[in-house]
């Protein structure tokens, strides 16, 4: 069908998205953006699974993708609950408020 190199390029794309998600988590102080960036990292992993499954012509990649999506949904549910509490406590979504625990 197409060039074998394409699969490599899909993985490179996944790596780019993964790195961008990581930058998002590192740069943003807004917890909502951190969570979205985490979703991007998960999405990048999902893309890698799809690519791998496609490369081998197996359904396993898509099954794993389903599991990744499930994890994303479950994580976001709890995370948004915590976000609401964070906002209620500090009137802000800044995670840098959280620095009591240290030493």
């Amino acid at each position: 069908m197409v060039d074998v190199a394409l699969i490599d390029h899909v993985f490179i794309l996944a790596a780019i998205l993964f790195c961008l998600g990581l930058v998002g988590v590192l740069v943003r102080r807004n917890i909502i953006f951190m969570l979205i960036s985490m979703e991007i990292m998960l999405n990048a992993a999902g893309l890698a699974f799809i690519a791998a499954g496609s490369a081998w012509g197996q359904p396993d990649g898509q099954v794993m993708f389903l599991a990744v999506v499930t994890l994303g949904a479950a994580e976001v549910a709890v995370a948004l609950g915590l976000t609401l509490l964070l906002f209620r406590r500090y009137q802000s979504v800044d995670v840098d408020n959280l620095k009591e625990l240290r030493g």
Partner: protein
Amino acid sequence: MLDWLWLVPGLPFLGFLILFAGQGKMPKRWTTLVGVGSVGLAALVTLLIAVEFYGTPEAALTYRQTLWTWMEAGSLKPGFSLYLDGLALSMLFVITGVGFLIHLYASGYMYEDEDFPRFFTYTNLFVAAMVMLVLADNLVLLFLGWEGVGLCSYLLIGFWYRDPENGRCARKAFIVTRIGDTAFAIGLFLLFRELGTLDIQDAMSAATATWPRDSGTATLIAVLLLGGAVGKSAQLPLQTWLPDAMAGPTPVSALIHAATMVTAGVYLIARTHVLFQLSTDAMQLVALVGVLTLLMSGFTALTQTDLKRILAYSTISQIGYMFLALGVGAWSSAIFHLMTHAFFKALLFLTAGSIILSVHHQQDIFKMGGLRKALPVPFATFLVGCLGLTALPPTSGFFSKEQILNAVWSSPTGGQLIWAGAVLGAFITAIYTFRMFFIVFFGEQQTEAHEHKGFKFHVPLIVLAVLAAVGGFFHLPLTSALPHAGHDHVPLGVEVTAIALPMVGVLLAYLLFYRQIPALRQLFETGPLKSLAAFFYSGWAMDWLYDRLLVKPFVALARWNSKDLVDQLPAVVSRGAALFHRLLSLSQNGQLRYYVATMALASLVVMAVAVYTG
């Protein structure tokens, strides 16, 4: 009878368990019965074992008892096995025999203390651990005992926990010995790595088979083991904890910090003597450590005013003699001196405890004085102890020290210079011992004294006094366990010097501290030196006098050393550790995004390593 060997550590441990379970709620009578009785029974079992032991021909004098295989980790199968030979038996005599007397004494001495049961809980555990250390047939079990006695020592130094100063002393002892223990652990580890066995006897025979004489590995391991011994036995440069350890109750000082635990280092070196024999350098180092320690702490003892601290320094100094004996290959003399020292030093400590109790916890010798009449029994026993410490014939100390000095003279790792040091040490020992003796018991009485009488106080003192007096005639069954040193023939002059110098020392002390003061007074009262006479009148002035004339350089050295240089070692370790902790704590700054960044960076490193070096 030998089958009963396990009872020797077992009984004190059982005592510990009973006392621990009682949680201090048992009546004091029962506590005494359990605490003292368990050690007494252990001593009795030791005696019965010894009877059988002496009945067998010396060549076959070993006995091994495996209680159960402790664990099996691959090829390593350390068992709960006891190994008895002449060396272990000699140690058992000291630990259980002297230990029993001290326990008996303590049951009187500590009776009024509200933590009376806790005291016996700790000391019973201590005796069990110490016996375990001595009887261990493998290095793991030995390490168990080694750690166990350290733990008990720590708990007992801090026994009177309400005074934070005692906690500090306990911690200091703990940290300093820890430095030695780490060296010891590394040494054991290397020994195991090189020889592949944890059994002590197997390791020793493997050592001779594996290593040539003076091999580097043997030297390294010997030196590391020496490090452990030095820490436990308070030798240079790790000696500073012992004087501070006197913060514990006096029976503890007698039991742990004079008679038994501090001699564990001597035992360790004797137990692994095969290893040390392989290395002339290590032996030389042991001898040097011994002679330097005995001189340094002897001079320090001269300047002390606290009764227990004088005894503590003298303990360090006497253990120095034992190390010196080990260093020159006089193995059995070292163990012999260990035993006689246990007798007279336990005697001195217990008597000191009686004195201190009588004068209401006053420990400054210059505030005692003239106690001869008020305290007749302690006076007599203290005298015996002092004679033993000074090694005047025919006390026990004389025989053991004489053996050591003769061995030093003729040994290749000894020599005349070290011998001279050791004899000088004996001379100083005589001075500080009798300085203490004369100041405490003669002169004007400074404080009132009430003697504590009774069975529990007097019997241990008298028995120990007898032992200190005649202990030199004992024959320890060491010939099969330790190589025979052989009879050293030394020139008559040498022997005479060694015997005479302590006597000169006693005479000097007599002149300085007993006789000379009134004589000086008469001399100076008539002349223009009257003002000076008043100055010399006080004991302090005498202190000042010999301080200036006699020992100034050495004392300066000793002071400088004990206050700064060596104290720095634990301080540096603990400060370094604290700094390490603070630096690391900075990394734990609580910032979530910083945590993510660290994690990402670390992941990056791991991934790069996996890809580019794989």
